[in-house]
C-alpha cells in the first residue's frame, strides 16, 4: 500500500515530525511504500541544514535525510510556506538575492501541487501536525 505523509509542524517544538518519522519507518519496514512526504506550515523548518541539536538529542533533519537516501522517499518542502519562514534552496536564494541557503540534502522545494498529487496517487494520506 502507498502512504502519503503530511508534516505540518517544525522540529523539536512539536512531536509531529517525530511521530511522522516513526510512522514512515514502520510503514517501510512492513513492506509498504512511502513515495513522498510533504512538509507544510512550520513543517518546512524540518528541512533546515543549520540545526545543531544538543549531543544527547536526536537530529531530526538527519533522520529524514537518511530515510530519503535509504528508501528513495521524496521529501518535498512547500515553496510558499518556506519563503515566509526563511527556508531557501540554492536556486531560490539566488533568485531572491539572499546570500545563504538552508535546505538540507534529501529535501527539495516545490509547489502545493505536489501535495494534491500525493493525495491522488497514494492509497492513504496521513497528517502529523498540531
Amino acid at each position, binding site marked *: 500500500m502507498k502512504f502519503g505523509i503530511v508534516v505540518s509542524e517544525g522540529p523539536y517544538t512539536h512531536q509531529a515530525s517525530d511521530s511522522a518519522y516513526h510512522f514512515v519507518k514502520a510503514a517501510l519496514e512492513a513492506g509498504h511504500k512511502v513515495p513522498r512526504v510533504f512538509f*507544510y506550515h512550520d513543517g518546512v523548518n524540518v528541512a533546515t541544514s543549520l540545526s545543531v541539536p544538543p549531543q544527547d538529542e536526536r537530529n531530526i533533519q538527519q533522520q529524514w535525510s537518511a530515510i530519503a537516501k535509504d528508501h528513495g522517499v521524496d521529501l518535498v518542502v512547500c515553496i*510558499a510556506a518556506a519563503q515566509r519562514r526563511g527556508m531557501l534552496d540554492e536556486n531560490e536564494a539566488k533568485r531572491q538575492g539572499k546570500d545563504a541557503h538552508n535546505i538540507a540534502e534529501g529535501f527539495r522545494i516545490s509547489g502545493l501541487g505536489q501535495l*494534491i498529487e500525493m493525495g*491522488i496517487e497514494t492509497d492513504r*494520506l496521513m497528517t502529523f501536525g498540531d
Partner: protein
Amino acid sequence: MEDDVKKFLYVNRKAPYGTIYALESLEVVLIGAAFDQDVSLAFLDDGVFQLTKSQDTKEIGVKNFSPTFRALGDYEVTKLYVEKESLDERGLTLDDLQEITWEDEDDDYEEKPSIRIVTRAEMADVMADQDVILSF
C-alpha cells in the same frame, strides 16, 4: 473510482489570524482546484469563524484573506459544509457569514449559494464519504 476522480475534503477547525492554518489551508484549496478532483470544504468547531463577515485586519497588520472565500466559485469550489452545532455554540447564524455563491453553468448560470449548513450528524456523513481528508 470514476475516472480517477477522488473526493477531497479540506477540514477547517481553527480560527483565522491567531494562527496561519486557515490562510494556508485556503492556499491549498486554490492550487488544488486545478486538479479536477471532487472538492469539498468542511467548517466546524472554530473553523466556522473563518467565514464571518466584516473582518478588518488593518490594525493587526495581518493580511485579510476572507474575501478570497467569495472567489472560490470561480475555481469551481462550490461545496462549503458548515456545521450548525458549531455555529450555535459560538452564537452565530448563517446571517453572520459572508454570502458565498457560484454560477451553475448547467442551469443558465444561476447564482447558487456555496454554503450548506449541516448538522453534526450530516457533517460526520460528509467526512465518511471522502477518499482524502486534509486537516488544518
